[in-house]
């Protein structure tokens, strides 16, 4: 019975990709009020600035947390980089720009690198909850060198999978690209083979418990759900697994969560 329900759900998934990409689907209706999003985005960047962070890894919740698989709290991760910003009207200011890997609108099996604002970053949030990693200042300098160099784009693989295996270059998602850039900075390399070898050796990805039926039918719904780059177990990079990796290796100065009314430690 359980398997039948699972099968029906996955068949339903097959009908929905175009709705999801249209932006006017149910997801669009559940987006939080604009003023709250803008206020929260500014709260996060003010918090980062007060801590003197030039580069941070920030995550958002793009889905009701109760619907996410065990061990996954955040659905999107990007680098926030303190910058001198100039606008088309000539106005200038200091603040954060966000370096994202986003799924392409209209083709969710492909991705692109997009720079946007903190407010745009949280525009897709279903819950105002930010996961934040402030790297060690020495690592921030190294990250900035990579982000500002051609290596950042060279490490992008536009072939997208929701559950990309971070130990393989076959597919990539936003969290894996973040991890690749992080490893490039740590090891002073732009060689994807060295990066992947070090990920395989020292990074423990998040285990995602899926059975054979789920893995079999999911790619029929969309190739973005493929797990072809995995072995018997499906493991992917997440904000939590990156946080654990950085904590374990003394690479992070601070790891915490920001909500509209408080700042708390990240326990994941």
């Amino acid at each position, binding site marked *: 019975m359980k398997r039948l329900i*699972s099968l029906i759900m996955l068949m339903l998934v097959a009908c929905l990709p175009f709705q999801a990409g249209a932006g006017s689907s149910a997801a669009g209706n559940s987006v939080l009020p604009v*003023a709250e999003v803008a206020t929260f985005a500014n709260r996060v960047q003010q918090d980062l600035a007060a801590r003197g962070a030039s580069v941070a890894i920030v995550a958002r919740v793009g889905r009701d947390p109760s619907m996410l698989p065990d061990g996954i709290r955040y659905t999107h991760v990007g680098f926030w980089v303190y910058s001198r910003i100039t606008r088309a009207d000539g106005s200038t*200011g200091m*603040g954060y720009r966000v370096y*994202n890997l986003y*799924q392409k609108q209209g083709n969710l099996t492909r991705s692109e690198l*997009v720079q946007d604002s903190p407010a745009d970053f949280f525009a897709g949030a279903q819950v105002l909850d930010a996961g934040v990693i402030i790297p060690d200042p020495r690592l921030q300098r190294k990250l900035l060198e990579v982000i500002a160099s051609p290596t950042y784009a*060279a490490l992008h693989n536009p072939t*997208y999978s929701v559950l990309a295996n971070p130990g393989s270059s076959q597919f990539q998602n936003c969290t894996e690209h973040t991890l690749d850039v992080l490893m490039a900075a740590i090891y002073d390399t732009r060689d994807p083979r060295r990066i992947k070898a070090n990920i395989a050796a020292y990074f423990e990805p998040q285990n995602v418990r899926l059975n054979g039926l789920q893995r079999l039918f999911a790619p029929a719904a969309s190739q973005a759900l493929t797990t072809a780059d995995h072995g018997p177990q499906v493991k992917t990079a997440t904000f939590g697994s990156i946080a654990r990796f950085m904590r374990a*290796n003394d690479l992070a100065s601070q790891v915490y969560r920001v909500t509209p009314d408080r700042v708390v430690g990240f326990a994941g």
Partner: protein
Amino acid sequence: MQFVKRTAGFAALFLVGACASPSVQHATQSADHSAQATGHGVSAVASGAATVSAVPVMAAGSVLAVTGAAIEEVGTGSLNAGVEVFEAGIGARPPATCGPTPRQPDCVTPDGPPRLN
């Protein structure tokens, strides 16, 4: 029940989209976000003009200031022509890692545990 939840969770990652851009999730509402945010006293920039350049600044270790154009409104970033979009790819072939046996000729040996010098 746990099985069904996991299945729903897997689907959920895709339906709303892990790594989804605001243009996917938010496109229908973005056009008037600047005005709304400004009206609520959130934005310090009334024009809603797109960012044309952003130069990273390395200033870690002291309190930084967020001022002017960086006090952002919602909806003028990735939805405007000023956005930076890169397209580059690396090979789709997984790298060979050096297992004990048999040793693959093009394998890469890990450097060692991550350390900051």
